[in-house]
């Protein structure tokens, strides 16, 4: 048997699923004692170039409450042409089309290697993708120009038949009609008045007249295209028009007096965008792309007043309950986000400004709808330009890396129930026998809607073992989970991806070592982190940290090997060894620490943390540090201050930042210009190596990370110093002494101290 590591990796590659536990404790009681819940990270649309979709409808279990999809785990009676559902044990007749099946002539969905399978189904009319640009015009001239160019460029990246629309806003909101010749036409709304969807549709003339117009005119059946075409037009038809229109966009003309912020009606603009799509294209794939260069300053959803002398709320203000617009604004955007989610559309937020832009309040728009959130300093930066371009990147098979309106349904065997999910989704409130009463994350449902997703979008799904202790599962019994994701592919096809997995049950009392060995500490760390971050959104920061600490201690108590009250005897098995370290870095991460971060930044970080896959999430929790030196090939080194050495170049990837740091000596060499001397070409190569590696990361990462190139003593070195474990500080510099690294000026505890405390607490009999 392969190692669990291989098993986990294989599973991940095939099914896009990583479970915290790969052998499941067989009773509720035992499961709760495992501390880390039984949960998984699911990447529903994980890229599978090797998986050809099948062109037929899935076969469903006939029990109305089940409707599980036929899968390799089902028992099949080839002669009787019957199959037994592995979830509800209902015996089902195969449909007539399956008349020819036999042991040797199996449909794909019965083959074990197709535990994940994708169906292409013909359902409903195919509508092209929709991209609705919502553009802030209260920008500096330069920014606006850059944004306009990006937008114009993006037109060439869109699928030719995609529909595009344009809404611009500043003090007022303009919905541009794109079909007009000779005169540019737009509908204007004031930014201070919230409008209901109905009002917006009436005002845009989208509501269909009750009585079909005059008698003389023959009734035109397809009225839909006529109506929608005013604001949403196929790119190929109007790209010239739209390019001109974008080119002519002017900064918001209303005067902004000294000491004031421009009046920016983001709230209403979004509301109109949502209302427009709601009225015209409900339940088809659509992206509302909001580009904003500052905080909303008027109307519903305003985040700050227009007086420059009142700064935008900080964490301090929020703690002091001093952010007067926050609650109302948040509520406004939440309502919008929920409406958008109901319609199956998603909202992207591209916020580029030096100050905050209200992401805190607007975050739910992206979070609930699976939209992107991008934060930058200016639209005139490569960070924004490339990130934006990357939205339209194509995957391995030449398809856009985006999908829409996904409906994720989870089915479990009867020993398991679904506790909830954390990710860019909303609950569909589908109750059922497999829904647990205890909620973790967004619970109370077995289905979620993910309006926008890409191959990386990853949800954390939490389960609860409900099997009672006194009803043991027979040896070799397996629990199964089926994930059914129906979605609109970027080619506008409707597709269904079905992943069915099974894991062994084990009695935690007799077979704990099996369970222990099958622990996926990386998945567990991310799953716990998601829970922590999820809680942090609604709870006080210290409470969350305490909860995390307690969980960690309990886990160590459960799985550590130690003598009571003897910290030095404490050992963790290999499958748990990294876990405390992850927790240590998680505690320090911006996902849980708001110090030094603005509320917007926190929201931004948390947004990405809640949707990235395991690898990226781990990078976010514990950044990766590579060292380049003459002493050997580039190597990953400890994220520790001791790694900062004068003759090293460090490359740190925190997901959000790529930092290249030249050690003191290297920096001096560089200043001295050795890299330009032919005899020191190797130095030139050394300098170049991290740049190349960084470039590689930059190429693939979405959103594009902030790229920092700094050196010892440089002001930007703080990015590195704040991340590394402060094993040497000004307090203990001389205690540790010797060869290594750079002291960090901090009072934060180091990993070593943390571990000491952990051991102490874990072994303590008092705990």
């Amino acid at each position, binding site marked *: 048997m392969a190692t669990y590591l291989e098993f986990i990796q294989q599973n991940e590659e095939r099914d896009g699923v990583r479970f915290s536990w790969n052998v499941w404790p067989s009773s509720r009681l035992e499961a709760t004692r495992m501390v880390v819940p039984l949960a998984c990270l699911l990447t529903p649309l994980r890229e599978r170039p090797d998986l050809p979709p099948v062109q037929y409808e899935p076969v469903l279990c006939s029990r109305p409450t089940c409707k599980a999809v036929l899968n390799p785990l089902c028992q099949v009676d080839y002669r009787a042409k019957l199959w037994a559902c592995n979830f509800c044990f209902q015996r089902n007749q195969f449909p007539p089309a399956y008349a020819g099946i036999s042991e040797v002539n199996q449909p794909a969905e019965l083959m074990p290697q197709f535990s994940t399978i994708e169906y292409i189904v013909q359902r409903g009319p195919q509508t092209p993708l929709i991209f609705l640009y919502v553009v802030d015009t209260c920008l500096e001239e330069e920014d606006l120009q850059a944004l306009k160019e990006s937008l114009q460029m993006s037109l060439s990246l869109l699928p030719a038949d995609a529909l595009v629309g344009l809404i611009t806003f500043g003090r007022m909101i303009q919905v541009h009609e794109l079909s*007009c010749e*000779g*005169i540019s*036409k737009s509908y*204007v709304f004031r930014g201070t008045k919230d409008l209901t969807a109905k009002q917006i549709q009436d005002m845009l003339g989208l509501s269909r007249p009750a009585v079909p117009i005059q008698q003389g005119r023959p009734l035109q059946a397809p009225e839909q295209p006529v109506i929608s075409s005013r604001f949403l037009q196929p790119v190929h038809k109007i790209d010239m028009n739209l390019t001109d229109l974008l080119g002519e966009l002017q900064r918001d*003309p209303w005067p902004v007096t000294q000491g004031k912020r421009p009046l920016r009606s983001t709230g209403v603009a979004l509301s109109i965008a949502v209302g427009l799509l709601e009225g015209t294209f409900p339940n088809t794939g659509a992206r509302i792309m909001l580009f904003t260069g500052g905080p909303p300053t008027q109307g519903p959803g305003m985040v700050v007043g227009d007086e420059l002398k009142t700064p935008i709320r900080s964490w301090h203000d929020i703690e002091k309950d001093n952010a007067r617009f926050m609650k109302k604004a948040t509520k406004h955007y939440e309502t919008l986000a929920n409406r958008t989610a109901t319609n199956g559309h998603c909202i992207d937020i591209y916020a580029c400004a030096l100050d905050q832009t209200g992401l805190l309040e607007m975050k739910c728009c992206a979070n609930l709808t699976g939209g992107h959130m991008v934060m930058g300093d200016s639209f005139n930066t490569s960070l924004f330009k490339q990130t934006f371009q990357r939205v339209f990147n194509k995957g391995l098979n030449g398809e856009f890396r985006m999908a829409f309106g996904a409906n994720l349904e989870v089915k479990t065997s009867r020993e398991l129930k679904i506790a909830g999910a954390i990710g860019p989704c909303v609950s569909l409130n589908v109750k059922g026998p497999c829904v647990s009463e205890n909620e973790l994350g967004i619970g109370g449902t077995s289905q979620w809607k993910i309006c926008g997703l890409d191959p990386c979008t990853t949800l954390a799904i939490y389960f609860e073992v409900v099997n009672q202790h006194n009803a043991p599962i027979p040896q070799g019994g397996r629990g199964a989970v089926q994930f059914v994701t129906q979605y609109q592919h970027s080619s506008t096809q409707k597709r269904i991806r079905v992943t069915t997995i099974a894991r062994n049950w084990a009695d935690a009392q007799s077979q704990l070592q099996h369970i222990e060995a099958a622990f996926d500490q990386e998945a567990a760390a991310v799953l716990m982190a998601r829970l922590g971050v999820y809680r942090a959104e609604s709870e006080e920061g210290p409470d969350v940290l305490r909860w995390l600490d307690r969980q960690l201690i309990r886990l160590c108590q459960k799985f550590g090997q130690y003598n009571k009250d003897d910290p030095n005897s404490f050992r963790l098995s290999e499958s748990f060894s990294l876990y405390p370290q992850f927790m240590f870095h998680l505690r320090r991460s911006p996902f849980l620490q708001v110090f030094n971060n603005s509320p917007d930044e926190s929201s931004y970080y948390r947004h990405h943390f809640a949707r990235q896959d395991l690898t990226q999430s781990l990078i976010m929790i514990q950044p990766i540090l590579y060292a380049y030196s003459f002493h050997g090939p580039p190597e990953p080194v400890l994220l520790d201050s001791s790694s900062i050495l004068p003759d090293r170049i460090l490359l740190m990837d925190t997901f959000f930042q790529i930092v290249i740091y030249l050690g003191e000596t290297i920096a001096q060499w560089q200043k001295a210009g050795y890299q330009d001397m032919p005899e020191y070409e190797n130095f030139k190569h050394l300098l170049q190596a991290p740049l190349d590696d960084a470039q590689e990361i930059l190429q693939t990462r979405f959103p594009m990370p902030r790229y920092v190139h700094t050196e010892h003593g440089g002001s930007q070195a703080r990015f590195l110093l704040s991340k590394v474990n402060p094993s040497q500080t000004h307090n203990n510099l001389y205690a540790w002494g010797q060869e290594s690294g750079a002291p960090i000026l901090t009072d934060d505890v180091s990993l070593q101290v943390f571990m000491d405390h952990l051991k102490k607490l874990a072994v303590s009999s008092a705990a």
Partner: protein
Amino acid sequence: MLQLLHIPNPSQEWEAFLQVLDHLILHFIMGIMETLTPHMQHLSLVFQSPPPPNNTGPSYPPSSLHSQPASPHTASTSCTTQLANQLNSMQINSYGPSAIQSSHTSSGHPASFQGPQPLPLTQHQMALPPGPQIPPPANNFSGLCAQSSLPNMARQDGIPGSGLPNPNLQQLPGQTPGPGYHPQQGNYGPQMAGSQLSYPGAFPGGPAQLSGPPQKRLDPDSIPSPIQVIENDKSSRGGQIYATNTRGQVPPLVTTDCLIQDQGHASPRYIRCTTYCFPSTSDMAKQARIPLAAVIQPFATVPQNETPLYVVNHGEAGPIRCNRCKAYMCPFMQFIEGGRRYQCGFCNCINDVPPFFFQHLDHIGRRVDHYERPELSLGSYEYVATLDYCRNNKPPNPPAYIFMIDVSYRNINSGLVKLICDELKTLLDKLPREEQEESSAIRVGFVTYNKVLHFFNVKSNLAQPQMMVVSDVGEVFVPLLDGFLVNFQESRSVVNNLLDQIPEMFADTNESETIFAPVIQAGMEALKAAECAGKLFIFHSSLPTAEAPGKLRNRDDKKLLNTDKEKTLFQPQVNSYESLARDCVANGCCVNLFLFPNQYVDIASLGLVTMHTGGTLYKYNNFQLNSDSPQFLTDLRRDIEKKTGFDAIMRVRTSTGFRATDFFGAIYMNNTTDVEMAAVDCDKAVTVEFKHDDKLNEDSGALIQCAVLYTSISGQRRLRIHNIGLNCSTQLADVYKTCETDALINFFAKSAFKAILSQPLKAVREILVSQTAHMLACYRKNCASPSAVSQLILPDAMKVLPVYVNCLLKSSVLTGRPEIPTDERAYHRQLVMSMGVADTQLFFYPQLLPIHNLDLKSDAVPAAVRCSEERLSEGGAFILANGLSMFLWLGVSTPPELIQGLFNVPSFAHISTEATLLPDLANTYSKKIKSIVEHIQNQKPYTMKLMIVKQREQPEMLFRQFLVEDKSIHGGASYVDFLCCVHKEICQLLN
């Protein structure tokens, strides 16, 4: 003539009516005979009281016509026979007196104060041929002259016909006005003797009457004729110079053309008063019940040959004003103490003369710079205002014009939108500008709308216009700042591009619902945002039924007529229009409304904002592109080119003892003194009523100063000051002598039209009649020499008052008849409210010009004839105009050469009545008549659409309504009936 009247409905009723007429004639003529007696001095008309029983209801014919059966129709038969017997003698008598009278008049005059004048005057009249000039067919009107000589002697008559009065007046400046004047007034009474008896036209008139049904003829010529009064004034004062150098002098009639020289009092073009001599005490005023009012037309157009207003600029010091009453420096300020101080003529406060303004006095106590400073020597002038007079103490921006076009289905379909857009392209080059400027400072903006609003960005640097749709009509706002209001010269190409595109853009619209209040709101907000005053030009066609503020429903209900609720038809349907009007005024937004209705559009509501913002309402019923565009385009052109004052506030100050209490016009009043007008143009007149506070001093007179603070078309803040001084007297005779009937009618019309908002129509009509009777009765009691109660005696200056009041009563507004559309009434009501004296005169008593016997060689416009069926003839052609409509009436036997000349068709039958313009033909007939039409149209605020009416065809019914001396088909009394009724009222009062 009466036969003609018969044609439409030769009913029994008519017979009865004729009988009554006969009856009246009888007594009338008897009255005249009495007047011949030399001692009857002041009387213009003497009327025996009708035999009481048979005259039943003449208490008030017009209203009673349908409500009370006991109207003139139903005279008792017994009386008829009696009357018939008397008839012959009357008629015979009627000629005689006139002959005698003419000599009488001339003999009477020399004694009078105007001694020098009357003699030549009468001669002049004889020479000047209103009556005789007219060839036989016109005999009908010869009767016009019947009363005509009466007026000549009094000042009221003083239309500068042959310049007689004027030379006299011009000499007056040398005299001190007060003392010189009074003795003359004292003499006044006796001089009147016999004046009313001159009948220059009586002789020719006779035969005509005989040609009618002989035994039933009455002599309409023997009752006072407005035409005669007008013609007399023309002949005595027309073409002369009228200098305003005397306090309380009565100016020529509005119908008289003369040159006015400002010599210290405002020209009558700016201010006309109901009387130029106020009674000294309020008791007197109450007794006479003559309204004391001034009709002020502050921006009236003055002819080229009269001096435009001087502009006084005191720089930063600003206008000089009395410290106490804030009156502006004017000729009424008396400089004392060697010129160091001055006494305010209004409140008598002594003020210091500002150092920069100091000047020495000459030997008669006048400043030596008197003639160099307009504010010391002229009645009207302007001041440049300082920042204190500006909104927010900031100099105003030049005003803006916003064109707001209804692009709903109807307007597109009728071609109206295209017409407007095409016209604007040329029209925008003609925006008004200051004399010295090269181009207009006025900016323009464009909005179209149906049930949403479309704003247009026409900024000059755009390649193509941008359209911005505002569909939030519930709370409308202006979607753009920059580029909405532009200078046409700079944005010409974009604007033209836009105007080309608008008709196409909406070519396939099927939107039929419209909004209205949000349109005004939008325009107002746009002006507010641009911080300027301006005018909206709204082209609208339907009842605004779309869901929006100011939404209206069709509430036209004929059942309300003649009930207490009738007034609601004239009130706005929803309150929002009132508050909108207030906001518009507060922001200097004037609303001009061009309406193109096919049906009821609720003008009472739609027009309200226009009314209160000093805007003009134009209405084109059932607009047809072919026939109605010339009229509409001319109106539009004229309105755009009009010189206008924006964001205006008018204040009327008076000398102590009386004050302005009531204001009528296209104005808004926020308090009791400030007359606010978002804009005021040359055609808008405000009628101001005065009441006594105290006794007025005969020496100092009654002084009025009207100051209008406004923003000029170039964006300069200015004050326009008009001053006028009136006399005061303890003698009622003086008051009556200086009355001006035209101004009185203007006042009566406006106050009545305002009153119908709060009172039942019937009450308003009764008040009008009773006030007329009261005024006349008071004269009779206090001024006329004793005579039999049965005589109708009219003061000379008011002798046409009854006919005018009757016209007013017959106006559609005061006639609650289901045949008259409610909108039409509301429309007329609104128009009249802002009219000046000349406009009301013409509106209530239309001009009827015979054109079949023209002197083709002369340039002169033919003399008008009285508005009565009798004056028409089968062989004649007439033009009738009232300032709103114009008719060309063609008798069945109109001379073929005239028809050929005018229409280029061979006969009467070939004439098409479709045309609204006379074809341009190269013959003298056509040219002459076109020039007459042009002359009639000249200087009128509304373009009159010409309707061609053939005798005995259906449209003639419409035309008939304008023959105001006749009994109206809507039940209005004839002149004679009304006179009779008034007389009866007077008799009752005297008893």
